């Protein structure tokens, strides 16, 4: 099984079934939803890397609304829109709202798999960037604690040295007093 989860949203049972079968054959993890309402419910239950949705669906929740919901629920989800040729303009509008891409009907599956591969590559790069970031943050935090500890320690030791110098140079004091006070400072650490 490939490490990419896909939600297919389409009101047409034939297209829905076809997409599900073809994607499963390519070994993706696939769920299906028959409308925007079911899609919203499912997206709130678990994270999908990719949502493939029909642009035109009956009811208040069309493809654009599914896109907006997906981005609102988790902005990492990438959305692919399936459009009829006549609604390409709407699809371009959708791209401006953050859709990853759109495909015209009838669906060319080679093209679809290419788009999904691209998204998968992006997600992998993103994930390793985040891993690196996490590793860097951890290293940085540990290093910062050490450096800050040393910084305060050096400042305190410098202060002690200055105090000792002042005492040792103090001609008003007896030699024994100077030594005693210098040792006191050394002992305070």
């Amino acid at each position, binding site marked *: 099984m490939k490490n990419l989860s896909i939600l297919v949203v389409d009101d047409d049972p034939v297209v829905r079934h076809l997409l599900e079968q073809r994607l499963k054959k390519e070994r993706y993890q696939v769920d299906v939803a028959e409308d925007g309402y079911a899609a919203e419910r499912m997206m709130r239950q678990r994270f999908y890397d990719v949502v493939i949705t029909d642009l035109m669906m009956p009811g208040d929740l069309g493809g654009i609304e599914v896109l907006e919901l997906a981005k609102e629920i988790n902005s990492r989800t990438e959305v692919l829109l399936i459009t009829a040729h006549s609604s390409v303009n709407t699809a371009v509008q959708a791209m*401006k709202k953050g859709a990853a891409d759109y495909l015209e009907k009838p669906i060319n599956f080679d093209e679809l798999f290419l788009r999904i591969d691209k998204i998968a590559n992006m997600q992998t790069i993103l994930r390793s960037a985040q891993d690196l970031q996490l590793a860097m943050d951890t290293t940085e*935090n540990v290093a910062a604690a050490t450096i800050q500890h040393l*910084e305060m320690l050096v400042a305190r030791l410098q202060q002690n040295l200055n105090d000792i110098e002042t005492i040792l140079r103090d001609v008003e004091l007896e030699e024994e007093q100077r030594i005693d006070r210098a040792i006191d400072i050394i002992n305070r650490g």
Partner: protein
Amino acid sequence: MIKINPAELKLVAQYIQEISGIFLDQSKAYLFETRLSSVAESYGCKSYQELQAKARQDGSKVIEKAIVDAITTNETLFFRDKGPFELLQHKILPEVIDARTPRAGGRVPVRIWSAAASTGQELYSIAIIIKELLRDAANYSFNLLGTDISDAAIAQASYGKYNRFEIERGLDKKYLQKYFNLFGDSWKIKDEIRAMVTFKKFNLMQPLSSLGKFDIIFCRNVAIYFTLEDRKKLFNKLADCLADDGYLLIGSTESLTGVCSRFVPKRHLRTIFYQKQ
């Protein structure tokens, strides 16, 4: 990609240090190649020696700017390390405002400088903290300046637009909703915050006197790219332009030991800040 040879490495590294102070390790040839190859190509140069020579001759400094933009690291995020911002909110700002009130009679002039502002996240984070702390920020006079050596970084900072990857790093959801507007697939800082800050290009190798005095200076994670000599010069200049009771914040892994004895480190909770002796 154009390959770089050892002689060019030395030449280009020296040129970059001259124009920016940034000291690049000559053992990292790939860094020069990945960052400068496309700059060389776009100015029709076949080698890095040619690029360097052309940049020196170019009176308009367009090539120099392109090289600086390509070589500078804009690694930054909103509220990078929580510590300094908590310190600012709970200790520094209240103290500075308190100290400035009697003299100013009403409006308190407080000057804050983000000395390596990069793409603006640090200064906007500071502005957000001020807005959160002082509901009636209008009663105070703040002067928030962000400078960076990279024109490209300053341009993005001024525009205040960030993509979702930049936003997701460090920014609290509650601040996102409150202080940013959705702008296509990105987010743009709201005008009320944008109006609090000024950005301009500035090279830290230059004298700082033209900038005036500051109450609080953030100079984080920039001196790490300088040689020890340049670091000493920089922090000495920072001491000159910081108010006597002012505050300096450096990066969490940076140290001023052996760099500038005019500053003393002080600790508040888990964060260190510096004040003048």
